[in-house]
């Protein structure tokens, strides 16, 4: 601890370096966190623009705007950009900002690696997005990159592999940084069980990342070998096995799903107690539940592949293990509800987003249980029902949690309060439109509309039109979010150190002034009982 403090002290400046150097050579966790969050917001709009193209083409039957190839490029890149460019970097950005502030550390443990892991991302996405301009066009075989289809890609193929490798390296380094920081730099007296729940959620997420990103790297490297070096890992004609890719991919892919939701659980577990003015109910069981979900995420990958033709024993195993995930997830939902029970609730923007998360993530959880039922899954699989399911857990789930986190902590970052009315408008319009957008997709899938199609039979017209209207609305409303954030950076009512006066914000991050000084906790803070959530 003292050692880390001395290292941080060597680097101590009162003022950040000026100009572009501040960002290019950034080692300060707050600067890097800011860059991650800004990058994520840009990618959110890039991926969102692709979603607008998708919904515009699906507005009515027939092809009006884009040909099927461009449509497939849009769905594929929308997924890659949103997963690897928007949601994951947003969580890493939040971890960069908040983990040191919550555990009383002066910075992340490995600041130069932190710089490197961020700066890989703009290059990775420049490569990925520039595939739209190479011969053969952008990747169009789905973000899941299943061979043999992905091997039919043009020049974009090696660029995709390289971009995925860069994203993977970046994620692994980010995860290492979080683990090393949390394990070594907690202020004296902060035992693991006294650590804030957001840090806990991120600690478990970081282990998932380290476990599965190399698996993805291996899978895409085998694809590269098959394409360029005449190996036959996945080529049936050469004795390979196209199904093996799916197994390897989903061994990465399912934990990846939890990588995108566990930090959201952590955020919601911070926000709800604050605005319920009550400690988090069953905080220890929350940690165990998160860890259980993390463990279970490694043994459920087969549920993505029921229709692939799987031995009956495997179908039964993956059905049971998948259903088991509902238990710890249910515990979390019940605990959040119990936290609000007999509380004293107020509805500031972060709380609104957390409550929105609670309701709509649970809807995604219900359709998740339905999808686990193997016989029914044969009807749901690769239909719009699946699209509705994972968008419910990712948009009003993960994305709402990220926006809630920004509204919760941005006064601490900028020192300014934002326009509350604007933020509340953003919440209500987002909530209405996100349901108009995704709820009808359940109906489409059940009625038999497959996913990833640019055109559809006419009986799917009505719900597609409703969904597209919701999509355009949701897309436009996000401009309000950008406005609220930019206004808050530029000025506004000054925020106090505690920010949420009158509510019950708990934790070390509220003990330092707003905006947080460029260098905080240069000496380890003494943990007051009030800053400890659990005894």
């Amino acid at each position: 601890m003292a050692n880390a403090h001395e290292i941080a002290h060597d680097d101590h400046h009162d003022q950040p370096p000026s100009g572009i150097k501040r960002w290019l050579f950034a080692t300060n966790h707050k600067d890097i966190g800011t860059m991650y969050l800004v990058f994520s917001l840009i990618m959110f709009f890039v991926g969102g623009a692709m979603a607008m193209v998708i919904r515009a083409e699906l507005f009515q039957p027939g092809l009006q705007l884009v040909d099927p190839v461009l449509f497939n490029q849009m769905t594929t890149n929308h997924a890659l950009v949103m997963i690897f460019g928007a949601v994951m970097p947003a969580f890493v950005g939040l971890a960069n900002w908040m983990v040191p502030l919550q555990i009383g550390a002066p910075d992340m443990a490995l600041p130069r690696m932190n710089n490197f892991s961020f700066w890989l991302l703009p290059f990775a996405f420049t490569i990925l997005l520039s595939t739209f301009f190479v011969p053969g066009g952008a990747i169009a075989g789905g973000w899941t990159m299943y061979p043999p289809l992905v091997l039919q890609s043009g020049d974009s193929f090696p660029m995709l592999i390289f971009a995925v490798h860069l994203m993977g390296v970046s994620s692994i380094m980010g995860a290492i940084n979080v683990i090393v920081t949390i394990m070594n730099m907690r202020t004296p007296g902060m035992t693991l069980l006294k650590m804030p729940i957001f840090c806990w959620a991120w600690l478990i997420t970081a282990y998932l990342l380290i476990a599965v990103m190399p698996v993805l790297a291996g899978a895409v490297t085998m694809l590269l070998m098959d394409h360029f070096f005449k190996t036959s890992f996945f080529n049936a004609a050469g004795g390979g096995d196209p199904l093996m890719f799916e197994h390897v991919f989903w061994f990465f892919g399912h934990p990846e799903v939890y990588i995108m939701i566990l930090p959201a659980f952590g955020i919601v577990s911070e926000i709800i107690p604050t605005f319920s003015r009550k400690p988090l109910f069953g905080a220890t069981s929350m940690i165990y539940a998160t860890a259980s979900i993390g463990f279970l995420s490694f043994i459920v990958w087969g549920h993505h592949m029921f229709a692939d033709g799987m031995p009956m024993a495997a179908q039964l195993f993956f059905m049971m293990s998948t259903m088991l995930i509902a238990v710890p997830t249910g515990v979390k939902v019940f605990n959040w509800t119990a936290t609000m029970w007999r509380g004293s609730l107020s509805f500031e923007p972060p709380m609104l987003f957390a409550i929105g998360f609670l309701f709509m993530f649970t809807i995604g959880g219900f359709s998740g249980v339905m999808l686990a039922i193997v016989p029914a899954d044969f009807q749901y699989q690769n239909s719009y029902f699946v699209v509705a399911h994972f968008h419910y857990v990712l948009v009003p789930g993960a994305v709402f949690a990220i926006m809630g986190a920004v509204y919760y902590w941005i006064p601490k970052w900028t020192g300014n309060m934002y326009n509350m009315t604007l933020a509340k408008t953003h919440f209500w319009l987002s909530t209405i439109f996100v349901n108009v957008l995704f709820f009808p997709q359940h109906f489409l899938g059940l009625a038999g509309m497959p996913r990833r199609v640019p055109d559809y039979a006419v009986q799917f017209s009505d719900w597609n039109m409703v969904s597209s209207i919701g999509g355009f609305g949701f897309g436009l409303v996000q401009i309000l979010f950008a406005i609220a954030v930019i206004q808050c950076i530029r000025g506004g009512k000054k925020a106090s150190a505690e920010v949420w006066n009158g509510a019950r914000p708990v934790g070390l991050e509220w003990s330092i002034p707003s905006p947080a000084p460029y260098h905080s906790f240069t000496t380890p803070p003494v943990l007051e009982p009030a800053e400890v959530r659990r005894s």
Partner: protein
Amino acid sequence: MNLKRFRKMSPGGCRSLRGAAGLGAGLLGFAGGSFADSMSPNTSNGYNLPMGVTDISHEIYDLHMLVFWICVGIAVVVFGAMIYSLLRFRKSQGAIADTSMVHSTKVEIIWTVIPVIILVFMAVPAAETILKMEDTRNSELSIRVTGYQWKWQYQYLNDAEGIDYFSTLAQDSNFARQLHSGIDPRTVPNYLLSVDKPMVVPSGTKVRLLLTSMDVIHAWWIPDFGAKRDAIPGFINELWFKVTPGKEGIYRGQCAALCGRDHGFMPIVVDVRTPDDFKKWVVEQKAALNPPTLPAAAPAPAAAPEPVKTARLN
């Protein structure tokens, strides 16, 4: 209700399409079909799973509804508790937080155990259905289904051996689906869900499909049969269905695995006939085949992989 209407409408639509099927002209189907047919390609009411026409599809529908209503029940309790908290415990109404309420082992054990019991309750009937779905023994007719970018090949085995043809998107849908075609899809019967030559199977017969692919992964899906399985190069997957007698008709589905540019344009149509009509169809088809040496050669060019221009996605 739409569902009932479909059951009445379906046989008429089938007869008209059946006449057209042999000629491979969707346009003739257009002449004989009605608009109502194009609105009802399966027994779904437009917002729920189709009840379907096989025992398995009925079991799936029942499982789906069972799990759905269990979820609704849980949602009423959980969302009810949330909404009650949101209304009852508002600071603006003077609610004071009970900060001593931090933990209760008893309550936490209860809400861990109850979901486990509910899940077991759902898993048991699901497992029973899986056992039935996976039992492909004693099939009476086997058809080898091969996926191509972007069409299906049906090769009949057993008594219908020798019947071997491709099934592709009907011409009228194919014209209408082109970018800026100017044709309103609503005027095309069964837009994107009709083919030149459907698979023909007998009702009341256990039909086994042997699925594979010659290029990328496809998936064969007929919602009304509760039947979906991937067609994977280098693998042969099995799938069976048995259409309830009396439910003869045309059933439609689509490829359900992203397979490239025209993934959305390789529908699956199954024409279910009575066993007697099916036998007649087999005789007709065999009669239409040329002398024994030629049929092997004739389909070969069509069976060849797609030309080089599709080797890339663009």
